[in-house]
């Protein structure tokens, strides 16, 4: 039986090794692999990078992209104090949930319990402001794209001149990693676009790295508790496996 098992396993492995990604062999270059603080089973979010990333989001991306699943109160997870979060929230105006006594919806400063408001009231307004293109919500973007953080980083840093024979449509920009290579978003990052409070030089790769850290946190805020709990669970299970195996052997000792 083991012989057959081995032969079959080898063949299965060979099949699985066959490229599982898009059969359409476009000349998509491989994504540049980045070093991420949250990578791996012991990964955590670099809070300083995430805060810088939030600044990049706020000052650059939020002009067009919402993050509807984020609440202001979530920002305390990045190291901001309650008061800082209150202040950040209060700098935004949001619609009150209830109409006033005259039946009109009025605006008020946001509270930590409010979601971070997006730049447009609805999709149509967003498209109208962006030549018909809809800037996607960013709160899940890192989970919603193949390649995750590496892809988003690649996209942000992958703008270049199109190859000589490449036909560009009007209003589009050439991007190395965007499927189809033509993206409606103009390159969002330029060196020095943002001034970081901690003095980190705001180069494009730096800003891209930081905003991707922020966006990965936005998509998976529970990554760290998940890793921590996972470690305890796996440790417990390894011990359990050992004890159950020893017990099994002991009980079965008389049966053979």
């Amino acid at each position, binding site marked *: *039986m083991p012989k057959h098992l081995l032969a079959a396993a080898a063949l299965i492995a060979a099949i699985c090794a066959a490229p599982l990604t898009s059969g359409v062999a476009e000349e998509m270059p491989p994504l540049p692999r980045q070093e991420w603080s949250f990578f791996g089973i012991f990964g955590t979010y670099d809070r300083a990078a995430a805060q810088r990333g939030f600044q990049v989001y706020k000052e650059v991306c939020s002009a067009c992209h919402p993050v509807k699943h984020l609440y202001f109160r979530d920002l305390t997870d990045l190291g901001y104090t309650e008061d800082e979060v209150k202040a950040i929230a209060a700098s935004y105006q949001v619609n009150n949930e209830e109409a006033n006594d005259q039946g009109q919806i009025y605006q008020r400063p946001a509270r930590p319990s409010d979601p971070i408001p997006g730049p447009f009231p609805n999709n149509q307004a967003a498209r109208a402001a962006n030549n018909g293109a809809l800037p996607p919500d960013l709160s899940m973007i890192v989970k919603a794209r193949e390649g995750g953080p590496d892809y988003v980083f690649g996209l942000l840093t992958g703008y270049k001149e199109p190859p000589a024979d490449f036909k560009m449509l009007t209003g589009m920009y050439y991007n190395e990693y965007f499927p189809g290579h033509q993206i409606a978003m103009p390159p969002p990052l330029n060196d020095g676009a943002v001034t970081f409070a901690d003095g980190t030089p705001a180069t494009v790769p730096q800003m891209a790295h930081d905003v991707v850290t922020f966006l990965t946190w936005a998509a998976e805020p529970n990554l760290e508790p998940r890793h921590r709990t996972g470690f305890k669970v796996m440790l417990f299970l390894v011990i359990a496996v050992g004890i159950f195996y020893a017990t099994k052997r002991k009980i079965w000792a008389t049966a053979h």
Partner: protein
Amino acid sequence: MADIPSPGAGGRIIRWIDYRLPFVGMLQHELYEYPTPRNLSYWWNFGSLAGIMLVVMIVTGIVLAMQYTPHADLAFDSVERIMRDVNFGWMLRYAHMNGASMFFAIVYIHLFRGLYYGSYKQPRELLWILGVVILVLMIATAFMGYVLPWGQMSYWAATVITNLFSAIPWIGQSIVTLLWGGFTVGNPTLNRFYALHYLLPFVILAVVLLHLIALHRFGSNNPLGIDMKGPQDSLPFHPYFTIKDLFGLSVFLLIYAFFVFYAPNFLGSSDNSIPANPMQTPNHIVPEWYLLPYYAILRSVPNKLLGVIMAFGSIFLLFIVPWLDTSPVRSARFRPIYKWVFWLLVIDVVALGWVGANPPEGLVVTVGQIATLYYFVHFLILFPVIGKVERPRPLPVSIGTAVLEPSRRTPLGGAGAPIAKP
């Protein structure tokens, strides 16, 4: 040993209940004493694992159902709320999501174990059929469950699969409209899928009960495929197989936990993190991995109706396996041809999975057609033919002798290699 264990007052209460509703006595016999073949290998752990996963899925499902909102406008956000705001919500969601994959992996291994060792053969045909019923219910449940988060893949998988029914001549489109409750997949569809997704696992539970009753009628098969003839061939289920199942469970949990805590989205599709958009189809619509082989068969057939029939047929074919196989001998251990051909099926199914995962172009299409053809050839032609044509190796006299005295062999038949325990 048929006494109900009963120290003191607790025992009196148990005896009072058991006299009126004999469940303790029943449990005592079915779970404690129950004679189990002493030579069961670890391939026999997967049944109990499947049962445990059913319970896990039901419990996590109920707790998730308390927080989920089954409305097209709110479903996606309610899932994100579970992931972000509900205490341990991320854990419950990932456990449920990856639990489905684990459940199918376990059930497929369990099924293939049955195919290899002839567990479907007389007198266990009904046991096998009940198992296939469970598989069909699982597929329906998983399909509907996947729609609930209302992501891009949820929506479009629902659209593609419900559209299959339009292949039915004349009434097809009416059936699809009935399924949808509208002109496309939409909120009415979501709501009814939610109701059924909650219901079917309990139907599965009932069928599992029947499955266990059928099992206990004749007891488990075993790697040698020969019947137990007496107490020397068996061991009581407790403590031998309870501890073995517990050990197997802990190993499985290690794998399950790895997915839940460290690779929770590995088996899924990133497109499902995008809210459903009825105006835009994803580039590649791909079902979850455990449905890929059926999807591959569906796409491999150029004719729409035939493709639907073959895809559903590939599952329903399993119902008649006990009658397709003509071998006089159960276990592939003693079937020199079949034991190799079995692995061809395994490779074929994996190949079909690969085909289903990739866009239908070039090599993928060719492999898909060959693999689909082979699947049906395997069951419809090879099964009956091999059973007739091959010469089975001599069976051991009994389980007990095979395990305890490997030198004894049945007087019939020629020399065979000694029966070695793996």
